[in-house]
């Protein structure tokens, strides 16, 4: 815990046995290392960790033998470049990436010590199994065979849905994509990952407001902000390097920083205005601030008229949140909220940052949509310095979400409909009937058989119930009988005592991770647990997506330590054991059981049209990584050279094929640029009208658009109507015809022709619509305050039912 050290003394008792010995006296760094048996080499490492740009003089003589490799930190989602020094295959030194426009030579404590993550001695070293309460070392072949046989047996007796594939936000993009494809081939949607319990409410809330569920701007773009509003986030601790960008705006633009949090965090310590409110009252707080905005007519009326649907309904709800009621529910006085409203109104564009404090609630989807409504009311969307800057938590939680290591969708948020499966089967070159045959089916209430292929699987937050619940209450033939924890910390999930019971009931538990994790020790099992050592991302290579949607390429720094293997190799081994490796990897070269990563990137480039993961070929991402110095540190745009005009990491959507050369989209929904140069509008995702009202944009469109108004998403039929189909090449036309003729939608056109032509005419392939603050498909179309399930204010439950 945070304590001030006096003369290097950490006071307070120390609970763990290994520190215990040293703890009786005092613990300073050396004593700590002695106690842990790490004194040898400690000083050398300490020297390497001192963040300095100065090459030590003695390094000159041995410079020839030092190789420099670039990777990306594996902790939070900021995406800091790690520059590794390798000698004779050993990672000997580490520097922060000075050329990286993202971290600009900075690291936090975690980033500065990642060398230890890869080379650490506490790694899980060999495949092991728990036998009679003891861990026994085994070979990879034996492990895959034993686990595989048990899984195949479970599959035969209980169906494919009785094995749960729990993936990771630490996979690279390629591994995440393969993992998602892998459990599709196994025949289940029972797969998910950490994002469910991080930002799922953001992805759902935000995507249902304006189209895409991701951070709209970037860390760097905050340099343009005139005000910074942070709620339920503590970037000073959770994303330390991002705070550099916040503080730049604070110093350079004199931008006020507003921090709303129940706890006075280290971030709050930087705030001009700290708003302490009761946990779980986010919607009430936001509506309470907006009450002042509407009361004083500070909203951006023209922006709302052109680009927002449903704001009148929000206004009606906000009217209820006068200062007295807001204070009764949130505990914040009206005078402070009036000040906050005024600051945000007078300092536009302002950015809006939120994290887990807003999302991890029973009312999470209402919170995230209230935040969106706030930014839309002020006209802060689609502009440099504005935006919903949603900081994500893990190094590739954005990528793993985009590739839908989730229980409710195929990669690229295509969903689980028959059309979605057809699309991916085309990309994979797979026989759709064979895929169908891999899945179980259930008899519906109407007596008809329904394939589980098209039904959502169990989300990770409920896997416990998948084991413990009566199987008659479940939408699958049998309970979960085997769990695979692949890069997942079980202690990130609530209800751990019930989790322990669930773990004990399983037939089989498999943990695949560089470290044993809490999964290895939580339950009282004595048998049927396997630990398989995975590599860290520093021992393999591939792409990773930072929170701002930029892709970066990691080089392999060192060979895998001990017996560890990279995730994609382990996936291949299981696919081989289950007999579908040749099908699953038909487009991917494999050597010694290791799939060729660049082939995987190219395969997903061919299918991820929805969100524009199509233009980022491995070659382009690598070129950006090698030329980090050419990118502007605020706009992220390359200034001169071969990459001139492109945005760092080709932030998605990077439309079309790599050959089309789209520069990436640095700010979502920014109409001040042509789509071909990274501009956009809000996505037409919810139809063209609702209850007789127009949902398309009115008089707002990206610069250079030949359609000077809103329009729906593109299809082949629409191209023909516009008379633009003549711009298609013969090859594109043939590919489109093959999918569904005139009905072919831009998302399933594997040639990319429809979007190429739309963009050529200045249009966004996904249409041009209004954002909606009223989501009529959700339980609360207009976000409402609802008391937490376990509330300290029972007096409010009658007015604001849970």
């Amino acid at each position: 815990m945070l304590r001030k050290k006096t003369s290097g003394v950490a006071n307070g008792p120390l609970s763990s046995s290994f520190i215990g010995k040293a703890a009786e006296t005092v613990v300073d760094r050396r004593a700590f290392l002695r106690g842990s048996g790490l004194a040898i080499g400690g000083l050398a490492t300490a020297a390497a960790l001192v963040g300095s740009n100065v090459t030590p003089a003695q390094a000159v003589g041995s410079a020839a033998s030092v190789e420099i490799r670039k990777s990306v930190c594996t902790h939070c989602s900021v995406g800091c470049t790690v520059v590794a020094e390798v000698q004779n295959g050993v990672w000997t030194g580490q520097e922060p990436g000075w050329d990286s426009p993202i971290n600009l030579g900075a690291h936090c404590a975690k980033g500065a010590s990642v060398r230890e993550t890869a080379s650490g001695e506490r790694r899980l070293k060999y495949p092991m199994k728990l036998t009679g309460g003891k861990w026994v070392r085994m070979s990879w072949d034996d492990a895959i065979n034993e686990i595989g046989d048990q899984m195949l047996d479970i599959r035969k007796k209980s169906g494919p849905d009785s094995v749960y594939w729990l993936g990771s936000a630490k996979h690279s993009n390629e591994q995440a994509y393969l993992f998602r494809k892998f459990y599709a081939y196994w025949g289940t949607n029972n797969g998910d990952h950490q994002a469910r319990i991080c930002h799922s409410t953001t992805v759902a809330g935000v995507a249902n407001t304006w189209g895409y569920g991701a951070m709209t701007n970037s860390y760097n773009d905050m340099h343009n902000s005139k005000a910074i509003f942070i709620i339920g986030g503590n970037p000073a601790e959770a994303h330390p390097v991002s705070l550099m960008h916040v503080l730049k705006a604070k110093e350079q633009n004199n931008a006020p920083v507003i921090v709303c949090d129940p706890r006075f965090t280290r971030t709050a310590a930087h705030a001009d205005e700290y708003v302490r409110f009761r946990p779980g009252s986010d919607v009430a707080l936001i509506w309470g601030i907006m009450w002042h905005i509407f009361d004083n007519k500070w909203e951006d009326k023209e922006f709302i008229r052109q680009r927002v649907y449903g704001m009148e309904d929000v206004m009606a709800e906000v009217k209820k949140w006068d200062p007295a009621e807001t204070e009764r529910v949130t505990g914040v006085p009206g005078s402070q909220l009036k000040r906050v409203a005024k600051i945000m109104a007078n300092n536009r564009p302002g950015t809006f940052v939120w994290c887990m404090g807003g999302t991890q609630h029973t009312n999470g989807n209402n919170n995230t949509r209230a935040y969106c409504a706030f930014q839309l009311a002020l006209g802060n969307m689609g502009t440099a310095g504005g935006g919903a800057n949603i900081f994500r938590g893990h190094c590739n939680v954005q990528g793993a979400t985009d590739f839908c290591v989730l229980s409710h969708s195929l990669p690229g948020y295509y969903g689980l409909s028959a059309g979605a499966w057809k699309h991916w089967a085309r990309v994979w070159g797979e026989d759709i009937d064979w895929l169908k045959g891999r899945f179980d089916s259930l008899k519906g209430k109407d007596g008809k058989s329904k394939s589980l292929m098209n039904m959502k699987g169990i989300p990770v937050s409920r896997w416990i119930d998948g084991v413990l619940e009566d199987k008659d209450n479940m939408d699958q033939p049998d309970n979960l009988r085997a769990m695979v924890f692949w890069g997942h910390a079980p202690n990130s999930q609530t209800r751990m005592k019930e989790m322990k019971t669930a773990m004990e009931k399983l037939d089989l538990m498999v943990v695949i991770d560089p470290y044993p994790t809490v999964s290895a020790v939580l339950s009282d099992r004595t048998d049927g647990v396997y630990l398989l050592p995975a590599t860290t991302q520093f021992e393999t290579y591939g792409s990773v997506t930072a929170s701002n949607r930029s892709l970066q390429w990691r080089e392999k720094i060192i060979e895998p330590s001990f017996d560890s293997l990279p995730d994609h190799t382990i996936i291949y081994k299981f696919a081989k054991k289950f007999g579908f490796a040749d099908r699953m990897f038909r487009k991917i070269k494999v050597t010694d059981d290791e799939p060729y990563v660049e082939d995987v990137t190219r395969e997903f480039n061919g299918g991820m049209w929805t969100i524009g993961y199509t233009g980022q070929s491995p070659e382009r991402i690598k070129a950006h990584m090698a030329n980090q110095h050419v990118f502007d540190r605020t706009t992220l745009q390359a200034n001169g050279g071969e990459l001139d005009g492109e945005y760092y990491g080709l932030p998605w959507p990077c439309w079309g094929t790599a050959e089309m050369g789209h520069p990436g989209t640095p700010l979502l929904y920014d109409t001040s640029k042509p789509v071909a140069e990274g501009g956009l509008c809000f996505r037409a995702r919810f139809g063209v009208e609702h209850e007789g009202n127009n949902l398309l944009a009115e008089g707002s469109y990206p610069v250079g658009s030949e359609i000077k108004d809103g329009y729906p998403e593109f299809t082949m039929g629409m191209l023909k109507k516009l008379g633009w189909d003549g711009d298609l090449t013969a090859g594109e036309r043939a590919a489109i015809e093959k999918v569904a003729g005139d009905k072919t939608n831009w998302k399933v056109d594997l040639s990319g022709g429809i979007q190429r032509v739309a963009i050529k005419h200045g249009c966004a392939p996904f249409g041009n619509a209004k954002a909606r603050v009223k989501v009529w498909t959700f339980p609360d179309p207009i976000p409402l305050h609802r008391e937490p399930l376990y509330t300290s204010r029972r007096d409010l439950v009658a007015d604001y039912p849970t």
Partner: protein
Amino acid sequence: MILTSGRLVEYEGGGDETRSNPWLAELQQDMFVEMNPFDANGKNIRNGDMVWVKTPEGAQIKVMAQVTERVAKGVAFLPFHFGGHLEGKDLRSKYPEGADPYVLGESANTAFTYGYDSVTLMQESKCSLCTIERV
């Protein structure tokens, strides 16, 4: 009291990697609960005392008290990266030899309770209830 949770700069996620990293482990050695001096004084709890945090669903965790005005009266905060202790029991001996993290501690999520978002089934880990008493 209201129970909430959050991150620390030294650790990440479930903390297995970072608590196995000596450079980071040294900086955060104990799982703790932050509580306001008003609440601590009322329960005769001093900074650094071991306390039980008990929840409405019957779980309890044994952690060190951090008495601070960082949290308001009636609010307790838990950092969530710890693991390897369960309801006062140290599970270190159950790790494979040589692969136990340097720092273990109670998991905040042992104390967090049932509750899910209606649309996405997001869990509730920022707002629950607890009582705190001295060990």
